[in-house]
């Protein structure tokens, strides 16, 4: 797949940007920070209405049969405008897991709802600090799950979850309906991620993969989500770089625009570099879905996107001086999002290890 976007792809980028810029307002996002378990309903309604939920799913189940490249373009725009809910990524991941590893019955049951956005999907792989634990904390036995999946993004609202659980013969990738499952909302610095601990207690679940295949499948799903998230991070970093640039051109100190001071202008130029490296890695990774080196490409995209967004958040706030740390100006929305996206799908530490294992031939 080429890394040059065709006209259709460019149209997706343009249109999603237009829609999101018209509809997303920091004034609506700020209050959500102080409310646990709430998300920006307007964003999610837009995602459903625009068909973004269906974008990368198969036509046979209500999808539009496009791929990671197109979803990445949406995610980039969502990142620019501070997407109001995590379900686009987690729903995609859940749907892909069911599409790739599920039975026809499971696909028929879940994919149409995930494609329309009427069902919300979540991914619950992590245990403790580990995004892909060798010994998951949730146990799978006799078709039932027991244990707690911690801080699941979208967990407050999700209808279905894909889990990495511990079965008798090693890890089990499982799918579970969440109706009736207790959710303990996690108070977070970015509450509209709708994080919840999911408390499974004899919850019925179906096995998708077992043993080494389960772990491989989980890593593949995580990598798919990481590429989507990397696009979102890159979009956020790009927006911050532009905000910093615009501020540096207009704000004056000591009788001249602050952008004339090299400490400011070079920092923004460095951000430009980080954003472009992340963008290039994202575009490349999205185009490598299905290829042998997909995990490597995903890891590179993820690492550079996390660095870009965290750095842009630090620097953009710093460049703004005092006004940058006020609640009202809302730069902290990006700062918080940079951190929540840095944790979701596994931190930099995790992806560094995944990448080096491959470069050093240790994953074989």
């Amino acid at each position, binding site marked *: 797949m080429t890394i040059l976007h065709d006209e259709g792809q460019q149209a997706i980028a343009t249109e999603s940007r237009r829609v999101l810029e018209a509809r997303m307002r920091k004034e609506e996002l700020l209050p959500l920070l102080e409310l646990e378990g709430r998300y920006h309903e307007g964003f999610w309604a837009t995602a459903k209405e625009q068909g973004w939920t269906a974008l990368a799913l198969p036509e046979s189940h209500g999808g539009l049969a496009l791929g990671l490249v197109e979803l990445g373009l949406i995610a980039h725009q969502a990142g620019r405008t501070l997407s109001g809910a995590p379900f686009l990524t987690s729903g995609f991941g859940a749907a892909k897991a069911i599409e790739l590893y599920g039975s026809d019955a499971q696909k028929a049951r879940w994919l149409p709802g995930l494609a329309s956005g009427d069902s919300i999907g979540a991914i619950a792989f992590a245990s403790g600090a580990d995004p892909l634990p060798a010994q998951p904390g949730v146990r799978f036995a006799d078709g039932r799950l027991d244990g707690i999946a911690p801080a699941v993004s979208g967990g407050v609202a999700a209808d279905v979850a894909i889990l990495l659980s511990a079965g008798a013969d090693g890890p089990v990738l499982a799918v579970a309906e969440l109706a009736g499952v207790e959710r303990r909302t996690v108070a977070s610095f970015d509450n509209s*991620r709708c994080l919840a601990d999911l408390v499974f207690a004899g919850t019925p679940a179906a096995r998708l993969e077992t043993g080494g295949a389960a772990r491989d499948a989980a890593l593949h799903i995580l990598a798919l989500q990481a590429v989507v998230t990397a696009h979102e991070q890159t979009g956020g970093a790009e927006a911050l770089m532009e905000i910093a640039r615009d501020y540096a051109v207009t704000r004056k100190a000591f009788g*001249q625009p602050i952008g004339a001071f090299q400490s400011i202008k070079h920092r923004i130029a460095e951000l430009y570099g980080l954003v472009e490296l992340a963008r290039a890695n994202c575009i490349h990774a999205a185009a490598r879905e299905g290829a042998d080196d997909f995990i490597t490409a995903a890891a590179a995209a993820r690492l550079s996107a996390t660095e870009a967004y965290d750095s842009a958040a*630090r620097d953009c706030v710093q460049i703004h001086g005092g006004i940058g*740390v006020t*609640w009202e100006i809302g730069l902290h929305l990006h700062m918080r999002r940079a951190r929540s996206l840095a*944790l979701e799908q596994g*931190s930099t530490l995790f992806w560094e290890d995944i990448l080096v294992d491959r470069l050093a031939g240790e994953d074989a």
Partner: protein
Amino acid sequence: MSDLEAWRAKAAAWCESMVPQFGKAARKGLSVEEDLALGRRYQKAKFDAGFAGINWPTDLGGQGLGHIEKIAFEAEEMKHGFPNVYFGISLGMPVPVLMQFGTDREFVKERVLKALQGEEIWCQLFSEPSGGTDLAGLRTRAETDGNGWKINGQKVWTSWAQYSDYGVIVVRTDPTVAKHKGLTYFWVDMKAPGVTVRPIKLAGGDSHVNEVFFDDVRIGDDHRMSPVGGGFAVAMATLMIERYVATDSAGFGPHLDLFVDLAKEVRLNGRPAIEDGRIRQQIARNYAMRAGLDSINVRARLMMQAGMTPGPEGSLNKLVAVRSRQKLSELAIDLQGAGGFAFDAHASPKDDWASSWINAPTGRIAGGSDETLLNTIAERILGLPQDHRPDKGVPFNEIPA
């Protein structure tokens, strides 16, 4: 047991005894106003027990001891999360400056005693919206008004102004001379007519800083703490106190021990994170940096005790420590994985990594931004040329806004 060890043991015992009344559990769920009230009672108890103004003169209510005793007490005190944050600025800068520069000694004594007992709080009115970090570019003005002065203008980023009884303020008294020459230093009554305080909500969700508006606020000339036009020097003295006394190699974030503890607790690739080279590297480098700052501070205090002037390297503390704290806090969040999302807007940046992280940017901006500090080091210590300054040497009222 040395005198110092005995002192520290006494401090530890007293702090221990205060926990039921003032510790974290006692503070849980309180509104800011309730917590402040509790804080005032704590400060009074501290005064009564002989732990307030430890290194201040006894005739002003202090204990007449050394900086080392103060440090020892604070090391014990910080373990318990007592409600002392409201008095940090007050007793840190404005009140010491009042002790140094206040002319009416009776008035000074009365204020110092009330401040030490938590009855009164002082704030420091320096930064302005248009000035950014440019102290010499202040626009708030005082004009002569009968025997006194009339203040008009706006200050910003004033910590605890909403709870303050008094403040120290730098204002422009002569706009016709070059920028840093037209400033004068006063104290003001924060409850005086014409003073309006408006809290600013910060990125982390709290509102301890304020905008303060002055609208024809009248003060007597006895409020003046510097020669007319000589306010810049006193303001610099205030910042000097900040540099050498209110330093913290942890950058006002968590102690490195807490990071080491976290790294021992959390697992990375199935092993304690403390065994991972990336984590070790950050611990080692942060330790080396903080140890260097600590040594600089110890040396500066030894020099001051020996009657010498410490070197300018004390100015490194805030620059280096807060910037590093920001990245270390991010790493601490990463390390916790799913556990890293948790957040409590009322947690303390001194022992909570998420709180430390979200408040770090304020630390890198307030009281001189990183960039201002680098410029100051480059220009004043190293003699490098100033940046291009179109406003330099121009009378203040001729600089375009």
